[in-house]
């Protein structure tokens, strides 16, 4: 059980000695006058690692992710990407959406190449890159299909490929598997870990599934609801060298799930 001496590490989270791909400082968000979504959150996201934001609904995890993405404005506070403050979407970040957000009138190939199309990359070049990542996410052969012809899992693979094509430093994934059925989700989680290890991406991942968080994360940030604050930071330290099934039976894995559940349970009722 390695659940962090870093618990409640509100202040040492911004330590300068480690290489952080992203940081948030004193992030506060109000929706209107009344809804206090985030309350001066300080957090850093180590480069090359998967950090998960986990918490009950209303803890502001998706809000935080969208602020980091530049899709929402913070009420106050800063977002730093590679040490530079940002206020709008940029090429160092790529977003994977909960509802996939694929263009229904575009083929898989065009959807995957969409980020490059917006940047004005010539067609042949962007389609070549897109084909490479369609291959990487295991969708070879469906290039000319339309999203409605694919299953939920396959659609999200398209969403992932689209985010990988633009070669961002950090992937922002907003509950990417919540609209994917259970069996496909497990397979997809395993594939995602392999892919990210190969691509050396940093990931900020939002989920409400404890098992998913413990399975995929290097670092789990537990958020408390209304207003969203950091409850604790947990590092599961699960080796992914073992077989997926062995990991899911691992004592460390199961204990970490249990520990998080006992913390989150307090917020339910």
């Amino acid at each position, binding site marked *: 059980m390695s659940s962090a001496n870093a618990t409640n590490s509100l202040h040492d989270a911004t330590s300068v000695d480690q290489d952080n791909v992203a940081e948030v400082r004193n992030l506060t968000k109000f929706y209107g006058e009344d809804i206090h979504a985030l309350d001066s959150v300080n957090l850093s996201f180590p480069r090359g690692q998967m950090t998960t934001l986990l918490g009950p609904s209303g803890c502001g995890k998706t809000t935080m992710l969208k602020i980091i993405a530049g899709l929402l404005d913070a009420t106050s506070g800063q977002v730093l990407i590679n040490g530079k403050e940002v206020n709008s979407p940029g090429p160092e970040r790529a*977003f994977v959406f909960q509802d996939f*957000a694929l*263009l229904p*009138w575009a083929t898989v190939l065009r959807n995957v190449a*969409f*980020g490059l199309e917006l940047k004005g990359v010539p067609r042949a070049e962007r389609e070549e890159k897109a084909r490479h990542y369609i291959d990487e996410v295991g969708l070879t052969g469906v290039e000319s299909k339309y999203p*409605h*012809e694919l299953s939920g899992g396959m659609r999200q693979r398209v969403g992932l490929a689209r985010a990988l094509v*633009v070669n961002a430093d950090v992937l922002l994934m907003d509950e990417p598997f919540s609209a994917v059925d259970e069996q496909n989700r497990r397979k997809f989680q395993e594939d995602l870990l392999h892919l990210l290890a190969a691509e050396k991406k940093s990931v900020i991942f939002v989920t409400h599934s404890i098992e998913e968080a413990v399975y995929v994360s290097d670092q789990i940030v537990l958020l408390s609801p209304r207003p969203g604050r950091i409850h604790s930071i947990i590092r599961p330290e699960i080796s992914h060298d073992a077989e997926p099934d062995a990991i899911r039976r691992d004592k460390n894995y199961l204990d970490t799930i249990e520990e998080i559940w006992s913390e989150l349970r307090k917020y339910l009722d």
Partner: protein
Amino acid sequence: MTTDTSTELARMPKSEKILGIYYLTFYQILSVVVVFVLWEIAGRYPISPAFPTFSATMYALFEMIFDGRMIAAFAETLKPLAIGVTISAVFGVFLGVSMGLNRLFQWFWEPIFVVLQASPVAALIPLITYAYGIGLAAKTVAVIMLAAPIIVLNSYKAVRHASPSLIQMCRSFQGTRLQEIVIVIVPNAAPVIFAGLRLGVAAGFIGVILAELLITPTGIGDLITYHRSIAEYNYMYAAVFTVILFSSVMVGMLETAEIKYFRPEKKKGR
């Protein structure tokens, strides 16, 4: 969502045929035949001396096509219709899209078109003659008054309801506002914009016929009025029939254009 229906269509066994014709096409033809047969029976019964049979109507139709009366009438009717529908479509879609994107445009134009859509335009058509006389201009204005509000309001609502998730997606990949509008919002809104165009074209037909009946009898309106006045009801119905037929063909062509240029994913399902 609309994509669900096309998925259903895609799942339908396409190879299944009846009498050598595709399943779907067979039932489409069958429904048309049933209506014509019922029409013929109703005409022979007869439900009214002023209700001609299908065969008498078709006879009148072909007679008028071959002696040139129908062609001349259509040439006359199509002028205000084509001008009015083109103006309504081009400016209507542009205006509607602008209203969807810009609050100021919406604030200025929405009340005007809501009032136009809600008002009984047929009652206003005689008023048009005070301003525009009884010629082509008046009839064109009548077409626009019927067609434009539907096209504008549909385009406006289509854009206003464009998927926020797709717009966010475009922003997250650093799309410019122009790219957002051209690549995401307008194609996303296309089905509803085209639904508005189809309804608008159909309303334009109503407008032109109303104008020809209420302002001065010309073209198809003249054929209808004249043959009614001399109790040649089969000729009158033939004229009405061609208007419906022509209107349906126009609406169908719009649907084909929509699928071809904006919704290629639906083509596969057909």
